């Protein structure tokens, strides 16, 4: 310690004070406790779990990694989990292939996002890796909902992460390796619920998120759509950006089950449909009508997501609908 003190001391910095050690007992106890917490966390948590961080960042990393490895992408699906779960690209490509179209598609759906954050994520994460020939925007009512504060807040948090400078991102990446920091979201959950809630990366093939068959919770929602609101504006800007890059764009209304359709009043349903029509007209893009493909409610594991089998069938019938036209 004396040696270190003498190295780092200067005229201003006086670490060689007589009788005062730079390392106090309190500091050492603190270090010891933090070390115990870190080791304890490593002992308690199974090795396969990885921290989910501020977002489903591992899932997004896996998804981005898959995209990086692809050569040319013909069709990319953008949207929230409604896109990510309900359209497995493998099923879509295989159905298109049967119709004579050899495609390589990728699902770039981002869980838990509204279109403000989908636009940001797509622009900052996926487009730099691959510019597809066509992007199909899957837009469900929840993706444009201005009344869902928690999604809006979460989306804003997510968007903020793209504003981080690279050195900040690198710093966070270093700290993430500490379990106490990396797993802070899981620890907070544990303190509240007494349960370890891990969210493993569910990325399947080509960016698809496979949620399986297990039923999930259902909730009540309020809806508010604003044609001139931030979310629709962000979606519109996203389309502008894609078109300026020479990428073809189309919109496909996202799937929801009967309970969501019932929760929406007639005015809200019409408002949502009008927004999509106006967007399609404004940007001169195709608006797919696929109401006849909506599966029965029992195929949904919650209000928005199909089970694995139904998702494959839906993606195949979607490809048939698009490429038979």
């Amino acid at each position, binding site marked *: 310690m004396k040696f270190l003190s003498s190295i*780092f001391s200067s*005229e201003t910095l006086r670490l060689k*004070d007589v009788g005062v050690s730079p390392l*106090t*007992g*309190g500091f050492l*106890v*603190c270090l010891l*406790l933090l070390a115990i917490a870190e080791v304890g966390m490593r002992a308690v948590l199974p090795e396969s779990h990885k921290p989910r961080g501020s977002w489903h960042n591992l899932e997004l990393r896996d998804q981005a990694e898959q995209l990086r490895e692809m050569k040319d992408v013909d069709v990319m699906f953008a949207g929230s989990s409604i896109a990510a779960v309900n359209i497995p690209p493998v099923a879509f490509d295989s159905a298109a292939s049967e119709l004579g179209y050899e495609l390589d598609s990728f699902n770039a759906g981002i869980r838990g996002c509204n279109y403000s954050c989908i636009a940001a994520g797509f622009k900052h994460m996926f487009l730099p890796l691959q510019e597809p020939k066509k992007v199909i925007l899957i837009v469900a009512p929840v993706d444009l909902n201005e009344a869902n504060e928690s999604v809006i807040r979460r989306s804003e*948090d997510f968007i903020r992460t793209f504003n981080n400078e690279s050195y900040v991102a690198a710093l966070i990446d270093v700290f993430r390796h500490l379990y106490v920091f990396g797993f802070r979201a899981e620890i907070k959950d544990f303190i509240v619920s007494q349960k370890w809630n891990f969210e493993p990366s569910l990325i399947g093939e080509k960016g698809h998120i496979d949620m399986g068959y297990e039923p999930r919770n259902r909730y009540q929602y309020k809806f508010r759509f604003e044609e001139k609101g931030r979310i629709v504006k962000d979606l519109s800007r996203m389309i502008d950006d894609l078109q300026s890059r020479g990428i073809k764009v189309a919109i496909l209304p996202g799937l929801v089950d009967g309970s969501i359709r019932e929760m929406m009043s007639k005015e809200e349903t019409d408002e949502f449909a009008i927004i999509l029509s106006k967007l399609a007209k404004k940007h001169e893009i195709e608006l797919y009508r696929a109401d006849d493909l909506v599966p029965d409610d029992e195929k949904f594991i919650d209000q928005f997501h199909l089970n694995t089998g139904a998702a494959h069938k839906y993606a195949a019938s979607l490809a048939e609908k698009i490429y038979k036209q």
Partner: protein
Amino acid sequence: MWFNSWEFFLFLPAVLAVYYVLTRRAQNIWLIAASYFFYGWWDWRFLSLIILSTTVDYLVSHYIARSQVEAQKKLGLYLSLSLNLGLLATFKYFNFFVDNFIALGATIGLDFDTPVLRLLPPVGISFYTFQTLSYTIDVYRGRQRPADSYIDFALFVTYFPQLVAGPIERASKLLPQIESKRHVSVWMIQTGVFLILIGLFKKVVIADTAGVRVDKIFADPAAMSSLDLWRGMILFSLQIYGDFSGYSNIARGVSRLFGIELSENFLTPYFSKSITEFWRRWHVSLSAWLRDYLYIPLGGNRKGTVNTYRNLMLTMLIGGFWHGASWAFIVWGGFHGAYLAIHKFWLESNWHLKSGQSGVIRRTVFNWLKILLVFHLVSFTWIFFRASDFASALDYISGLFSFRGDFNFRSIAVPAILLMVLFPIEWMQYRKDDLMNFLSLPSLIRGVMYAGMFVSIILLSGNEVPFIYFQF
């Protein structure tokens, strides 16, 4: 650049590393560069205002000190006052004056509603303006010699730990430290790091946790039950205290790492037993500034009872307006002025002597009742501080006393927990009158406390929530 940002986490060690190997003069130049960088992170264009203010006040202070004629001294003073208050009026209050002018015109049937220039207020302009003003006034009064070096004076104005949210330092305290060699001892590092830790804890764990709930409650007070509104009021009291005193702790801690001592800005204000005591403990550097440069020059309590009340009221109204260009802040100041006037009236009457309590238990109970009363009176005024405008503040207050909605007592769990967390820290400081007394606790207790604070900060940190007082 916020103190609770990743950028600052990198900025501070980099600045310190270079600082420690430089000579005093080079250190000051380095600190000015670092301070300009720190401030320019928000908007580099506003640096021009700081540099203008610094240069003019430096030149004016020398002009005042050299002048033998009172009229010349006054001219120098007025020049500094006009520049600093002019900048403040333009950049902070211009929009307010224009809006009120338009509204006033509308009431008498004149339509002034034409497009007007909208100015963005520079961060911390109220703080550094008051700091430089106090310097010029002190030089004029002959209580402060002008700074010898422009570099030293520039650092006095821009020193980054206290540039954007205080404490508003007097030249008599800060300049001598800037002008002399600094020594950073192990003790200063230990106490500095401790202050930073406790400041971050207050900000991240107390203020930001309360802030999430406060935002929700104040966003739509009409939809909240009365209990929720009371909860929101108490939570905001905790939020603003955790936020601002946390900031002050960090500022002092960071400054200690540079070997410079900043003033204590908060002396456990929520333990005040009277509103007068509250203002001796809350934002001490601002209340002292208002006392020395406004209340006393207005006549203080030397010009009769009526004038004393008028001076109190004026000082607090201006103090309120200093916080922000809105009627809600003026009303907030008005409430505090009225509280102070009533307390003064109470003290000058003999009633308080008659109500004096004898016996330890009765006195203790009575003191705690006084603390609770002052806390709630202060919390009530924070509604004007937090509400988006004056009308929403009134809606909030009417909701408080309408006793509507259900009384779900589980909802008070968060304020209760935050109070329980904050209480021991405040109590320790209150009892010993010094936050540093924590450092005399046994190592084991300190170690557990540090680790607990550190882990809580990690668990609850997420977003960089800006400090409330940065907007002033």
